[in-house]
């Protein structure tokens, strides 16, 4: 018999496909909220035993980071299903939009997106009650929380950040913004106390901004400002200096591999 969680996938709608995994929108019970399933499918090009070990370790790693984030107060989706031996991670479905699509230049559908959903009228930042400046502040504050917990995302882009739609956002009591910035895709994340790793994390995001959104410099500068405000002067100085170094040499320090 096919595994139960694969059966769950067969009842679900595929949303997107990448090199590493397929994304589905599923429902665990008929009356519960939707779940996003990330299925790290079998890679035929790897030896079976190696594939099983890698897949299991990656699902486990991603789940552990998400739990660490939740405890640190970083906004991430909650975990709902884990079947590591099948390579399946199920997380909360976030109603909203990824940040890339809400900023200028980010409209083109991304590689792997199945049937770019013609979301009707383009959702705009106004709908989320935000300006670009305010959004950049949210990003900087969230990254500061992440790095303070010694978690490095490893793949920061505007595609890996989402805004909860105000209609689907209820929890907070401090209502200066009607939305919440949520970090997603911790597939490349790891735990590190090194300033180098945090600086590279920021550098990767800076490059992602530059390649996706026109006139990104002032935007990224406000991200850093908000990031700075959430850190102590000492912590910030260390990261800032290292970020300047990384900008000069690129993200690979050792120049090998």
């Amino acid at each position, binding site marked *: 018999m096919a595994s139960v969680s694969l*059966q769950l996938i067969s009842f679900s709608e595929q949303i997107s496909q990448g090199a590493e995994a397929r994304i589905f929108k599923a429902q665990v019970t008929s009356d519960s*909220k939707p779940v996003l399933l990330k299925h790290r499918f079998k890679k035929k090009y790897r030896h079976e035993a190696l594939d099983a070990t890698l897949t299991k370790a990656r699902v486990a790693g991603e789940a*552990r980071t998400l*739990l660490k984030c*939740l*405890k640190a*107060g970083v906004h991430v989706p909650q975990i709902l299903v*884990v079947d590591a031996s099948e390579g399946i991670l199920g997380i909360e479905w976030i109603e909203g939009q990824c940040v890339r699509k809400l900023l200028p230049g980010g409209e083109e559908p991304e590689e792997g997106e199945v049937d770019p959903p013609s979301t009707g009228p383009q959702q705009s930042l106004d709908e989320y009650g935000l300006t670009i400046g305010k959004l950049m502040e949210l990003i900087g504050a969230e990254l500061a929380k992440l790095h303070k*917990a010694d978690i490095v995302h490893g793949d920061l882009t505007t595609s890996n950040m989402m805004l909860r739609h105000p209609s689907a956002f209820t929890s907070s*009591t401090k209502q200066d913004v009607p939305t919440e910035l949520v970090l997603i895709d911790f597939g490349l994340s790891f735990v590190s106390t090194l300033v180098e790793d945090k600086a590279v994390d920021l550098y990767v995001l800076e490059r992602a901004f530059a390649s996706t959104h026109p006139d990104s410099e002032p935007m990224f500068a406000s991200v850093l400002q908000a990031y700075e405000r959430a850190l102590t002067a000492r912590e910030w100085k260390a990261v800032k200096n290292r970020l300047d170094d990384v900008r000069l040499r690129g993200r690979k320090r050792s120049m090998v591999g």
Partner: protein
Amino acid sequence: MDAFIFPHLSTEKSTAYFALFRNVENASSLRQRVVKVSTLTDADERVEEERDAVNLAFIDARLITSRTHLQTAVHQALLASSTPNGMRTRSVHSEILFYLNPTNNITESFKNFGLSDKSTSLIVVRIGKPVAPAAPHLRPDQKEMQVQELMKDAVIGTIVPLDDPEQGLESITDWAAVRKLFKLNTEPAVKNASSPEEERVVVDRIVTSAVAMKSVMQ
């Protein structure tokens, strides 16, 4: 009666009937009965009947934070039971208690989340089939009634809807006990919560996620 229906699971496991009992009066004798049944051998008289009568999960409702929390534990236990050698305990019902507990110690799971002599609010869960295998002709609602009768025979108490705003889970969860058990009092997400309501949302999200990722916990 309330149930989680998992369409992707095989028929005999696809339904988890459950009920929330308040004002439970017979926790102590019920616990003794469950212990006694577990020591019966196949040679004993009416052993099948007795086993079936308490073939249920008894969960201390004070430590359950939401419907999703309960559903996640039941679902992960069912996933484990559907995998060869996937279960860490001897039945799918005890597996639910195991998944709810933050550590991998089975005895501790029972002690923390199971039936104790002092329990007054219990969530009782029954996986799958109706009571008697002899009744395949029953309609789903009749099966439900049958399971409910079985639960009422075991537990002396009042059944209340889980989602009832006054009598339901919301009025039962002991948040301080949950925070202590999961060691959340020093976590930034909990310490920095701006209101008790937000703190509860945060704790529920952490606890539910901990249940879901239990199988890959360090």
